[in-house]
């Protein structure tokens, strides 16, 4: 008797959860707007411009998802989140997805109950030193004073790295990236360490960027990607495959410039499947046929977004590195559209 009650309750709870889980795609469609959590400001990844329009690499992914689901790349309500508010905003349902340079880790996935739907930027912790220091490798940094953000994984990575190489360092604790720039330039520390992308963008703002170099060692894995709540599998699929569509588009040479031409039909069946000229991939996800075409049109394929927001032509000047396609020695590898 008791058992059946418990089972009954569990079934109802399961059904309710199922109903709620299927909800986000419909919720977004009904609302006509995607609530997308972004950073309150990170150079190249998310920041409003002088006209108050959000720009950046993470922002572009929100726009692509909105274009895929709603058909309008501007139907996004950007919800700025800090490192402290981002997870609660997602868990409480204030935002539908979080696209905020968040590292995919085991505990965030398993313990905080979020589902990472891919990686849009492979980052890693690096070192920046003044050229005048005459150091060519992080292993020569014995006894250096290191500026390090407290309470982050970078602090732990740094300790591990120096211990495993049997060298010593003197930590100079700092709070924010802005403070770090000032301390480093003032000579309070010899080395500044944080994610390589942040180091590059920091260096780009210096008066004389050429006087500083990034050391070749990358001492941690920081896969950054978008995430949704656990259990929302259909919605997670939409976000995951929108990102994959952008990556695949680059691999197949579909750009925002030639997409109209390619949508008319090409001799490559995978392009046809991706753009919806052939097959019914969109229908399987509850979207229409040209969802991926709209996502790509929103800002371009992955390579175009990278080049426009953080690539070598921009002041940030990041090289593709690990974020190149797998065919070019990088880690970007989208499962096939089939």
């Amino acid at each position: 008797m008791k058992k059946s009650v418990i089972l009954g309750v569990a079934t109802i709870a399961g059904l309710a959860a199922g109903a709620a889980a299927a909800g986000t795609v419909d919720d977004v469609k009904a609302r006509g707007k995607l609530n997308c959590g972004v950073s309150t400001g990170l150079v190249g990844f998310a920041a409003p411009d002088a006209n108050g329009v959000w720009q950046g690499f993470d922002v572009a992914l929100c726009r692509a998802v909105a274009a895929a689901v709603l058909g309008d790349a501007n139907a996004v309500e950007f919800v700025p989140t800090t490192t402290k508010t981002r997870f609660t905003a997602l868990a409480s349902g204030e935002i539908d997805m979080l696209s905020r340079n968040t590292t995919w880790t085991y505990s965030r996935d398993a313990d905080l109950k979020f589902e990472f739907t891919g990686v849009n930027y492979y980052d890693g912790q690096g070192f920046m030193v003044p050229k005048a220091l005459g150091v060519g490798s992080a292993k020569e940094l014995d006894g250096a004073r290191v500026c390090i953000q407290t309470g982050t994984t970078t602090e732990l990575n740094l300790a591990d790295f120096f211990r495993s190489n049997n060298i010593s360092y003197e930590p100079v604790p700092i709070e924010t990236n802005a403070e770090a720039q000032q301390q480093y330039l003032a000579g309070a520390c010899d080395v500044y360490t944080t994610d390589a992308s942040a180091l590059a963008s920091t260096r780009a703002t210096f008066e004389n960027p050429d006087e500083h170099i990034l050391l070749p060692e990358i001492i941690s894995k920081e896969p950054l990607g978008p995430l949704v709540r656990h259990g929302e599998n259909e919605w997670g699929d939409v976000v995951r495959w929108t990102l994959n569509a952008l990556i695949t588009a680059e691999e197949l040479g579909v750009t925002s410039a030639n997409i109209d031409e390619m949508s008319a039909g090409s001799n490559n069946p995978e392009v046809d499947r991706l753009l919806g000229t052939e097959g019914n991939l969109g229908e399987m996800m509850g979207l229409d046929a040209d969802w991926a075409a709209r996502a790509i049109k929103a800002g371009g394929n992955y390579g175009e977004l990278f080049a426009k927001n953080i690539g070598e032509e921009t002041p940030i000047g990041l090289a593709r590195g690990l974020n190149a396609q797998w065919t070019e020695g990088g880690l970007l590898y989208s499962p096939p559209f089939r």
Partner: protein
Amino acid sequence: MTDQTTNPIAFVAEGTIPPAPPPANETGIVKWLRDNLFSGVANTVLTLASLTLIYLLLKGVVPWVFNGVWDASSLAECREILAGKSGACFAVLSERWPQLIYGFKYPADAYWRPNLAFVLMLVAVAPVLFFDLPRKMLIFTALYPFIAFWLIWGGTILAPLVALVGFVVAGAVFQKLGKNSFAAGFFGAIIVALVVWKIGGALIPEGASENAWLPAVPSRDLGGFMLNMMLGVTCVSLSVPLGIALALGRQSDMPLIKWICVIFIEFIRGVPLITLLFVASVMLSYFFPPGSSVDLFLRVMIMITMFSAAYIAEVIRGGLAALPRGQYEAADSLGLDYPQAMRLIILPQALKISIPGIVNVAVGLFKDTTLVSVISMFDLVGMIRGPILASTEWNGVYWELFGFAALLFFVVCYSISQYSQWLERRLATDHR
């Protein structure tokens, strides 16, 4: 005959000596310098050291300010124009001026609305701050919150009107019932106000805000120094009456009221403001069903108001405690009831004593409004730390932006403190 040569006195002055100017080193600037700056070896050394310090400081700052670039589109361009000279890049202020003041999402063609609200605010607070002004102006002060709400948030004018009607009806009920019994008047007024708001809210047609004369602006789009001003002004003006009520409640003989006030004050004072802000922004959304949460601005406003009310209550309690017992007894002996005694005898004296403390809390509160930047609201500091420093054009500009923020806050806080000193002089009736 008189013979001068035989006069035993050698010299007699026949008139007064004409006044001569004092010796050169006992007058004017020289004397002042000698007395104040070079009156001894130690003071001379100190003066010279200070002068050197001031010179070094100005040598750095003055060219930096006067070489400042006001017209450029990015930090790199600033540096190009300066070509290695030391100089500030004030161009970030001119380019991002509207963002610093209004936030980055407030519609640009509606900037006149907060501007007008600000000017009207000066008119509305004038009769409160300067009691020589005609008392009739207080009517406008009472209407101002509704006007300001309508101007800044826009939308249908019916919403602030319904709120106003609710308050007016509640006031009337309180006047009528409160004569016999305070409790009946108090609770009657609350019930009537709630009923009016409920009915009025139902009467406002769905979608009335969409075609309103002033387009609606959601709270999330507010930002910049405007947000600091709004939070500061509303929270100070709400927390003073609340603080008075709490201070009186804490002194009450009725145990229930007394303990509610004590627990409220002690709890709020024992918790950091930033914790309350996190509760407002993060925890509360767990308790509401998705999509039906209370406006973030309102949540933050309530938290800051509660916080400063607890502090103001303690300041006023200090003022109440400073009054001699005789004042309370004098009020009783005149046959005044509790509200009359408080209104006519006790509070005027207690509040006068508390002015420096209240102003201290108000200034602190105004600066504390910058804490909302950690819960991703874009106040002045939030705008600087977030969007502006994260833009590729202006990443790396610190002194100019934070100096500007400091200047804005200094202007406001210094005016508040000057006003309070004037008020103290004006109210000084005792023989100290």
